[in-house]
């Protein structure tokens, strides 16, 4: 079987025709397999959704009870037989509940990895390497200029700044699913014990992480806090809130942004960031290229990001490689814009 017969790329995601399902479709379908709950991959309104329990829970938190017609939980390592096709979910190391989806039929295995990272993360299961014939990879940071440093080193810089500026609040912009909780967990690993303040948009998901047994230490809401209380505190918030009305309650804050984009100065300057923290939930260049090589795949499909460089790199190594040009992936930020819209002044 040719790989394209097993999984067919379309502009709204890859589609498995023999078993009639889509993976992370960007339009409403009958049967959707979802890699993780970021809103560019997990949309509401499908008839039937298969995903990990955490992904389903988070989708429910975000979209409400009726986000899908029906749902089915799939555990890591569990194999489903959908018609003639075998489907297995493996940890992707991206955010809580994130999975790579291995699809196999007639001796051909394709791994749709969704978003993934091979770096350590105390808030989710570590990435698992799955040997395959075709590896579908993201390429968010698919340029050799992106090499993420140790996240703990970036957190050291944050805590050093908190010590140097004990009167200024440190606003740490972080995507509300995954990054925010990882940043808090890293702050705890570094030995910081004071309460961490969070924006209201992070409340539900942060509480869910704790329910799942991920300790985040004392958390306070910014909403109820007095202005004087916020001076000198670490405040984790969606990136977009750092420039809106909400941020005016802090006097002379240090704006920090935890993102892989912060590696490039022009991006940090654009966002008027005072302290860029290069912390990413995506694989960097070395992570992408090492992973692709290690899967043993003879063919790479690149979903979104800096496709050109990864495709060029893969071809130079004698692999077959093609960009998929799926429309709508790569906007993890947009979820936060939605979340904060109702939170102004919160």
């Amino acid at each position, binding site marked *: 079987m040719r790989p394209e017969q097993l999984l067919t790329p379309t502009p709204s995601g890859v589609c498995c025709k023999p078993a009639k399902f889509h993976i992370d479709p960007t339009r409403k379908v009958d049967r959707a397999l979802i890699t993780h709950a970021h809103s560019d991959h997990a949309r509401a309104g499908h008839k039937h959704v298969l995903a990990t329990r955490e992904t389903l829970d988070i989708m429910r938190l975000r979209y409400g009870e009726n986000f899908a017609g029906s749902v089915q939980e799939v555990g890591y390592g569990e194999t489903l037989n959908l018609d003639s096709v075998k489907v297995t979910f493996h940890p992707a190391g991206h955010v809580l509940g994130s999975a790579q989806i291995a699809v196999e039929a007639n001796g051909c295995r394709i791994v749709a990895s969704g978003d993934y990272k091979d770096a350590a993360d105390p808030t989710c299961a570590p990435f698992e390497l799955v040997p395959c014939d075709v590896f579908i990879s993201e390429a968010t940071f698919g*340029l*050799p*200029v*992106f*090499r993420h*440093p140790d996240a703990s080193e970036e957190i050291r*810089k944050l805590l050093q*700044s908190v010590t*140097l*500026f004990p009167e*200024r609040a440190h606003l740490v912009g972080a995507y509300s699913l995954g990054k925010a909780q990882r940043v808090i967990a890293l702050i705890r690993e570094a030995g910081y014990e004071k309460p961490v303040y969070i924006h209201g948009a992070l409340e539900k998901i942060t509480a869910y992480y704790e329910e799942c047994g991920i300790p985040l230490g004392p958390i306070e809401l910014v909403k109820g806090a007095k202005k004087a209380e916020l001076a000198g505190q670490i405040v984790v918030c969606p990136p977009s809130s750092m420039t809106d009305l909400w941020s005016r309650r802090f006097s*002379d804050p240090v704006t920090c942004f935890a993102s892989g984009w912060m*590696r*490039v*100065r*022009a991006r*940090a*300057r654009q966002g008027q*960031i*005072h*302290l*860029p923290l290069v912390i990413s939930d995506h694989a960097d260049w070395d992570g992408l290229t090492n992973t692709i090589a290690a899967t043993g795949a003879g063919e790479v499909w690149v979903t979104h990001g*800096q496709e*050109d*460089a990864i495709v*060029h*790199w893969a071809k*130079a190594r004698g692999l077959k490689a093609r960009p998929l040009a799926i429309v709508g992936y790569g906007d993890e930020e947009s979820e936060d814009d939605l979340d904060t819209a109702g939170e102004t002044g919160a």
Partner: protein
Amino acid sequence: MNRFAELLDRIAYEPGRNNKIKLIADYFRTTPDPSRGYALAAFTGALSFKYAKPALLRGLISDRVDPELFALSYDYVGDLSETIALLWPAKKIKGRNDVPTLSEIVETLGALGKLELPGQLVRWLDALDERGRWALLKLVTGGMRIGVSARLAKTAAAALGPHDVTEVELAWPGLEPPYEKLFAWLEGEGEAPESNNPVLFRPVMLAHAIEASDFGKLDPKEFVAEWKWDGIRMQAASGLDKSGKRATRLYSRTGEEITKSFPDLLSAFQHDGVLDGELLILREGRVQSFNVLQQRLNRKAVSSKLLQEFPAHIRAYDLLSEDGEDLRHLPFLERRKRLGKFVKNLKDSRVDLSPMVSFGSWDELAGARADPAQHGAGQDADAVEGVMIKRGDSVYQPGRPKGQWWKWKRDPKVIDAVLMYAQRGHGKRSSFYSDYTFGVWTNGDEGEQLVPVGKAYFGFTDEELQQIDRFVRRHTVNKFGPVREIVHEPNEGLVFEVAFEGLARSSRHKSGVAMRFPRISRLRWDKPPKEADRIEALERLLEGDPAAPLKRKRRA
């Protein structure tokens, strides 16, 4: 170097001045000599070595990275040094001990032969992290724009201990990196570092342009004034070198040495001292225009004919040091006394004392400024550019310290405008309508109409104030609270000649221009409003059109 790079990163992104100072001071506090000294040198522009060319860097990276990937990366990042810093295939070794310090890098670069540079760069790039590589490449290519002034860096150094930035500035001339003695002194150990070179340039003290609104806040009794001469501000430093020979150096106000251009002045200095003054051309005791001075400055070769035709002269304003004694911490009036004796002692007609202008009130000073010939400048009045207003107790501080010295230039720009609104004044003037809004003609929605271009409450005599007040009361067409609208029709209204110092575009003003320091210079009872100026005249002035029909100062 990684630590210095981290600091550079932080201050590049931090907009607040005090926060920047805190970050730099923290670096100075936690970084040992001599690295912190070289960092201070980097901020003050005191580092010098031969820069590496971009071609060398491109060569290094093209040996290591696929050209297509380099092209895609460079296209994305947009800056060559940053692209290379990020792309460099570093060898990650935990706990490596070959990470170079800033001082190693600076000292090595100073001693390195050209052929050794590429190999050394590679060793450093291998050992540093992304930020460190970026800072290194910016440093070696001379492309480091840090966004920190020398003054700010010195302020941060001063924050280490009990001294303030003025003390640092005073101690600074002649000091060299890595400033170990300076840091020790700043941290409260040891004496202030001293330079024993007698002919060093001392950073110059400058004045703020005075605004009309400043006068109310300044007490004339605390200030003295002198003419501002239309020449070139300069500094002359004279002393004995190590072998006991007299050395004299002339500097421009930025510290550029101009000794060679004015050999005719050197023999005037036979005493040790550093003098601040104005360089002028004097013919038969008369100060020549700036134009004439310019002719001398334009000649490259200093011929004896030139020296004869354009005899140079120094008009002294200040004395910064005498017989090795630093006078800059003394009050201006004290220094001025010492200056008087010093100049007298030189017994040389090429150096004289700039006379003081006496005044009892700002209005009196305004009168002197308007007519220097009758107020002591005599036949040199044409070379008077305005007056300098100095606090009697001002110490000599480099830069433009607040509230100490002011310049008040003459020969303003002038325009005829029509009185549109008047408002009561404050204090003694509260019973008079003394604040005026005036306008010029423009072609607006309703055809020819007046558009306000500024406000003035200054420049008229008491008698004129009474006349205007009477006019205002008799010609009010509307009242809005404290403001009266005054008749301003083509054939009825009052025309002011308004003088001002400058113009700027302004989106806040309906007219699109804002005047700097406007004041009423004459009342034009003789002129009907329709003959007042139009907005186009201001716009031409804004664009520097020489056809603008306004009196302007012309310099060749």
